[in-house]
């Protein structure tokens, strides 16, 4: 959609090895619920995480411990109160919390992919187009983009009769596979996975694990939340453990 020149960061990039793709430092995030008497919920307090190319780091811990909040912060969906999130975007380091909105849009188009648990569907838009959208926005020719998606749909065993339908009426597992195809179609250097296999059967779980391995081999840096322990143990090299807050 757009080519963007980046505003220089106010702080110099940290001294990180060339293999690092993502470096989050001392993240703090507190939610203030103004509609509920101004209750303050501190969720992240000084969280740091470094991910290198070819690594998959698992976020673990009880529900409510802040895994998803960190994940959403790494995508710039939640806005952190403090700390920095350095990402290597087209050869230069950028700090997500410092970016202008249009710059963050560009980082999300090219550098950081995100597989959420839920697919936001648009009525009337067929599954093929939903999944091809990120490629089309990057300016990839429609036929090439659709071919890439078709291959992924096939690998993920998404029945052909569904390809031209809007995912509005799809089952949870079908929607999830559309979502996965959407994110894996683009070769993002950084990929965030929020329970990508929660609604899948064993066969398709295997396919997703295979896709993750392929991305790792291609030098992608991944961060994931996996409730399925087998999946986590197989694809992740490290864990970042969250403790429940009181």
């Amino acid at each position, binding site marked *: 959609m757009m080519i963007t020149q980046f505003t220089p960061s106010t702080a110099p990039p940290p001294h990180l090895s060339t293999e690092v793709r993502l470096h989050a430092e001392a993240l703090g995030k507190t939610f203030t619920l103004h*509609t509920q008497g101004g209750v303050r919920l501190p969720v992240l307090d000084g969280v740091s995480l470094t991910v290198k190319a070819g690594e998959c780091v698992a976020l673990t811990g009880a529900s409510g411990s802040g895994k998803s909040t960190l994940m959403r912060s790494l995508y710039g*969906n939640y806005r952190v109160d403090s700390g920095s999130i350095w990402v290597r975007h087209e050869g230069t380091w950028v700090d997500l919390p410092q970016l202008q909105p249009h710059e963050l849009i560009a980082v999300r188009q090219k550098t950081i992919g995100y597989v959420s648990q839920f697919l936001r569907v648009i009525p009337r838009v067929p599954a093929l187009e939903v999944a091809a959208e990120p490629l089309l926005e990057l300016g990839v020719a429609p036929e090439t983009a659709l071919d890439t998606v078709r291959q992924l749909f096939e690998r993920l065993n998404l029945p052909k009769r569904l390809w031209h339908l809007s995912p509005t009426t799809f089952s949870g597992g079908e929607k999830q596979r559309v979502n996965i195809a959407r994110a894996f179609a683009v070769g993002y250097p950084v990929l965030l996975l929020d329970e990508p296999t929660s609604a899948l059967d064993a066969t398709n779980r295997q396919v997703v694990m295979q896709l993750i391995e392929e991305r790792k081999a291609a030098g992608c840096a991944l961060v994931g939340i996996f409730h399925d322990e087998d999946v986590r143990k197989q694809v992740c090299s490290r864990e970042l453990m969250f403790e429940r807050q009181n």
Partner: protein
Amino acid sequence: MPPLLTVTHLTKHYGPIRACDRISFSLYPGQVLGIIGESGSGKSTLLSCLAGHLPPDEGEVIYHSREGNLLDLRTIPEAKCRTLMRTEWGFVHQNPRDGLRLSVSAGANIGERLMNVGARHYGQIRGEAQHWLEQVEIDCDRIDDFPKTFSGGMQQRLQLARVLVTQPRLVLMDEPTGGLDVSVQARLLDLMRSLVRNLNLSVILVTHDIGVVRLLAHRLMVMQHGQVVEQGLTDQVLDDPQHPYTQQLVNATLVP
């Protein structure tokens, strides 16, 4: 890539009331900027000031024209401003009857904007009208019918066609789905979404409907009492609302 539109400290008073209080933002090509807020928050006044329907009291509006010039909309001659509004800019009214001429045919409604900028060849104008009717999913058989015989949703799509025929770069929309049924709304939203992408349009979209901005807007500004109280990417503002007013707005939304 430079911004298409840069607004700095735009202010508009109605007597003692500040309807718009030092509003600043930049809009980039291909972006949809949503503006939400309750009635009286100043969002429609802001849109009217940008469209030249109302003179702002203070502030600057700089537009980067198709020829690559930076135009200060407050200082360029009025005639130049009117030409811009007919060519590079478009305005979509909430009520299609404010944007259409009901006493002429659908085809003439679309053709009129082309004739305003000098098109004279009847066959070409009619061809363009047919093309844009197709783009907004209106049956070409209806080209000679009057808009008053159209349903509300069709009238709104016709208004879009009338605006898009001159291939504007910036479209201002005031509650474009406001008076429509939910199912008709969904179709219009989906249509607008694909048009925005295929035509690389920049849009400023004023609405009070959170579902509409969620689907269409890349960025969001939240207005209250004439001020911008929160802004960011649409998903940031809606998933992690920080200002008390935004939280109230998001919490009040029913999720089906």
